[in-house]
């Protein structure tokens, strides 16, 4: 008895019951489709977070005053009351650490901005002239301030797109004069639009001034709250983090048993935390979808069992005309595997279609992975064999005389 013939027999048997075959496949179609669609959502989210982080620049490090949990993912833009970090500290970081390319002292002041009869409350961030390069942030129009502006603490502002819209409503902001805490500032540039950051905050709701200006004119302080630091390469960030820590501990004369009075945060840590969250989400989605695949498999077993009972007479006929038990068993096994594999293939098509539609309908990014496709094909074949084996064995163990007499 050759295997090709048994395939033929199994296909003919399936074709005789198209409706039942289709219904049996439905469980697997939904299961495989769900796995592929769900995994594509999870991986799409992962990919978009990674792309966002890459655009910010993975060379980026934050140094902050005060002790803050280094492993945490909280943003460093909130004001702190510690005054442990000085401009000289940041200068030292820039000059003395070879793995650091650029560094900018940073101070933040929330302020009311007034232009004509418009006003807008925003974050005024004081930085130095290297800031656009450190953050990989382009200027949209006008220009960024220079080192001379920083040295002389000139009252110039470069504003974000959101501020430009709300304060100037269509007017060209460059060259205009605005009042910040009653002091006149000249707008010299507008930053390119960046959109939301990883936590959903509007990055364009900002006004940027020389840090010296913000220190003296707005906050009346001499220390700095943060520093934006750029390592020479993404790989150098960990080394830079260590060296900054060592340098600052030394400069702050901390004893070995004393805690840091500053923190250095690496953006890669933030990226990894976000990545981990997404990986867990992908896994969760995949396992929920796998349950439906399992239910589909049980559906196959159920239908195959019903089918064996319903087709007892057919089995008797086959045995009477010379089918060996093994041929009957193989036939039923092949039927189950063919049903689940065909269901798997249709399920892949459905899953891919859904993955393509989701970005359209829900504006979520999706990313189809070959692993999920190969995985679901293998899984559905395994489901067929696993759940098809018991009914097939039951069919093969029938006695031909009893089976023929079955009503």
């Amino acid at each position: 008895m050759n295997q090709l013939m048994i395939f033929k027999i199994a296909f003919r048997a399936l074709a005789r019951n198209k409706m039942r075959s289709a219904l049996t496949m439905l469980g697997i179609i939904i299961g495989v489709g769900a796995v592929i669609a769900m995994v594509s959502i999870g991986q799409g989210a992962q990919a978009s977070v990674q792309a966002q982080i890459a655009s910010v620049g993975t060379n980026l490090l934050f140094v902050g005053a005060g002790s803050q949990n280094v492993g945490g993912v909280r943003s460093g833009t909130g004001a702190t009351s510690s005054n442990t970090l000085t401009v000289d500290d940041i200068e030292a970081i820039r000059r003395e650490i070879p793995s650091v390319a650029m560094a900018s002292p940073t101070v933040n002041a929330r302020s009311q901005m007034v232009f004509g009869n418009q006003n807008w409350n925003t974050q005024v961030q004081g930085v130095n002239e290297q800031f656009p390069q450190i953050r990989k942030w382009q200027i949209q129009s006008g220009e960024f301030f220079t080192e001379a502006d920083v040295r002389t603490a000139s009252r110039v502002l470069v504003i974000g797109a959101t501020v430009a819209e709300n304060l100037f409503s269509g007017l060209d902001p460059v060259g205009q004069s605005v009042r910040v805490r009653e002091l006149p500032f000249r707008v010299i540039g507008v930053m390119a639009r960046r959109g939301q950051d990883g936590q959903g905050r509007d990055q364009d709701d900002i006004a940027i001034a020389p840090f010296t200006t913000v220190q003296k004119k707005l906050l009346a302080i001499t220390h700095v709250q943060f520093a934006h630091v750029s390592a020479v390469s993404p790989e150098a960030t960990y080394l830079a983090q260590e060296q900054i820590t060592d340098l600052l501990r030394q400069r702050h004369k901390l004893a070995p048993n004393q805690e840091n009075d500053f923190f250095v945060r690496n953006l890669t840590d933030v990226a990894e935390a976000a990545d981990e969250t997404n990986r867990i989400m992908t896994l969760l989605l995949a396992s929920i979808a796998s349950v439906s695949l399992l239910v589909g498999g049980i559906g196959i077993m159920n239908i195959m069992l019903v089918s064996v009972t319903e087709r007892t007479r057919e089995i008797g006929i086959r045995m009477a005309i010379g089918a060996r038990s093994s041929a009957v068993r193989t036939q039923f096994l092949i039927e189950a595997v063919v049903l689940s594999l065909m269901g798997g293939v249709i399920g892949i098509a459905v899953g891919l279609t859904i993955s393509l539609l989701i970005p359209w309908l829900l504006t979520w990014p999706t990313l189809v992975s070959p692993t999920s496709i190969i995985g679901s094909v293998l899984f559905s074949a395994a489901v067929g064999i696993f759940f098809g084996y018991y009914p097939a064995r039951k069919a093969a163990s029938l006695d031909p005389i009893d089976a023929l007499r079955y009503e």
Partner: protein
Amino acid sequence: MSTVAEIDLSTEAKHADVETPLARPVIQLDHIHKIYTMGDVEVHALRGVSLTIREGEFVAIMGASGSGKSTMMNIIGCLDRPSRGAYILDGQDVSELSKDERADIRNRKIGFVFQGFNLLSRTSALENVELPMLYAGVEGAERRRRALDALASVGLAGREQNHPNQLSGGQQQRVAVARALVNQPALILADEPTGNLDSRTSVEVMEIFQRLNREHGITLILVTHEPDIAEYAKRIIVFKDGRIKRDELVADQRDAAEELRNLPEIVDEEED
């Protein structure tokens, strides 16, 4: 036991008279017993049946209900094994064969025709007839050609694509006959093949059997309750209580082909 031996002897004696002495035995049953056990109750369905059937014979088996006819057909057809006794089919001792070996023998040497037709539903006549060849591993074109030939020989040319529910009872039984003969078996076994058919359709099926027997030399064994059907055979064996009661040759064998010619042709309604 003595009666069994006597009958056995007389069978052999009668055979020697009429059949060609050279005809090879196809079936040799030697003191076959079959005991069914249902809980504590033992049913002795066959009580020592000894029988020889030679190549080219056409045997009708008769007897009251429950006398063991089907039980014996199942044993002859290698669907079942005797509880005791020896069975030699076509020169091969088959009483001790395994399940798979018996399946192969059924496939190659035996064709079955049942009272209830036992065709695969929702399957064309052609595919039904192809089925035994699928299990025998006959390749596509050859399989198709032989199935078409077999269907044509039972007068069903043109009905190859019909499903069983699109065929009359007589036509379904003819598909079953085509399926039984397609693997060129040494033996065709028919358990009450005309039990579900009207008299005219019965004669048509008997005509096919007689033709297969005469022209192709196929050995036929047929179980029937109807004495007039039995008379189409060459030899009648009567069972009673699991034993052979009578075994005799038919003096005046009926000829189904001739009777069909003399019957008035009934158009269309004949097979409903």
